[in-house]
């Protein structure tokens, strides 16, 4: 049976311990100090995420959300306003799939997730899809994302963040041509 020196064993143990301590420290530090980082694109320019180029065509404010079926328009919560982001996506990489991870970015990097996740806006039928899945390669597809924000921030919006939780790279923020 092959024998190993104690010194080598102690070195290995010390290395494992040092790596463990570093990992615990790093996780704790990151938990305390983590702040998202952004890369702001020029107005009208597209941003790339998950093998797809996404462009923000318009960012429209409204206090009513029109229903495609002619039904009751969606009203925002008191003191809030709808923000409708019209986007265009072009998939370039067939190996990756665009997952529609969008967030509206406002002053001091406030972020709002699409409203349908949190509000009754899901009950309003819209003519444009909110998340087109399984995009064809090189075929532009338009979709929209709805947000509900306090009305006082409506004039201070920066653009749409294209989230990709699988990477530590800066999150791209795209802006409409008009902003």
């Amino acid at each position, binding site marked *: *049976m*092959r*024998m*190993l*020196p*104690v010194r080598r*064993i102690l070195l*290995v*143990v010390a290395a*494992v*311990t040092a790596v*463990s301590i570093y990992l*615990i420290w790093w*996780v*704790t*530090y*990151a*938990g*305390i*100090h983590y702040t998202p980082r952004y890369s702001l694109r020029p107005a009208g320019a597209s941003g790339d995420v998950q093998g797809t180029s996404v462009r923000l065509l318009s960012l429209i404010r409204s206090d009513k959300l029109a229903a495609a079926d002619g039904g009751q328009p969606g009203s925002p*919560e*008191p*003191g*809030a306003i709808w923000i409708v982001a019209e986007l265009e996506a072009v998939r370039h990489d067939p190996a990756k799939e665009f997952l529609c991870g969008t967030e509206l970015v*406002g*002053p*001091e*990097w*406030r*972020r*709002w*997730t699409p409203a349908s996740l*949190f*509000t009754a806006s899901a009950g309003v039928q819209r003519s444009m899809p909110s998340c087109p899945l399984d995009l064809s390669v090189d075929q532009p597809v338009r979709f929209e994302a709805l947000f*509900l*924000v*306090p*009305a*006082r*921030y409506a004039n201070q919006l920066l653009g749409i963040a294209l989230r990709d939780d699988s990477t530590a790279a800066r999150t791209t923020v795209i802006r409409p041509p008009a902003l």
Partner: protein
Amino acid sequence: MRMAQSRLVGVLAAIALVVVSTIGLRLSDPEEQKFEVINGVVGEPAKVNNGEVTVTELRVGTILKQFGRIQDSTDGMFMVIRVTGAATGPRPLELNAARLLSGDLRYEGYQSSSGVHAEPGFETTVDVVFEVAPAHIDDLTLELGSNEVLRGYQQRVRIKLGITPANMEQWRTTARGLIEPMTDTTRAIP
């Protein structure tokens, strides 16, 4: 001095298991976590990271009505606590875990009843439901915190509900009949 290779593997595996177990135990036992306690009182906003939270109302009953029908009844008492969370800062307010404390006793939220979440610039009001034992409501305190497993720093808000030995019997007597929690409401912070 030399050691067999198989023994070295065993030693390293044991060390790795101890490290993993320690981390696992630390993460899975929230009471072992260090956290900051923010104390508050009913009717007054308690300031926390990312916003503030206020308890405005406490109701009790024995029959729970939800979604337009009788949901449940109890030999104990249902307690409905109205909580408003306001995300005054740039980040969401996430106090999703709610429980009631009375001495060593802990009551978790009834069924899926949880705490409060608000997006930046909004305030959300929720009715949090608990089922409690009438004999153990002395000094009841609502605790709100985060549900996250991995976190570097956490705050917990503790708000005393004003139930004392002097008025405990009055609460028990009041806890008769129907009680209906309201649906969550959200509005922009004025």
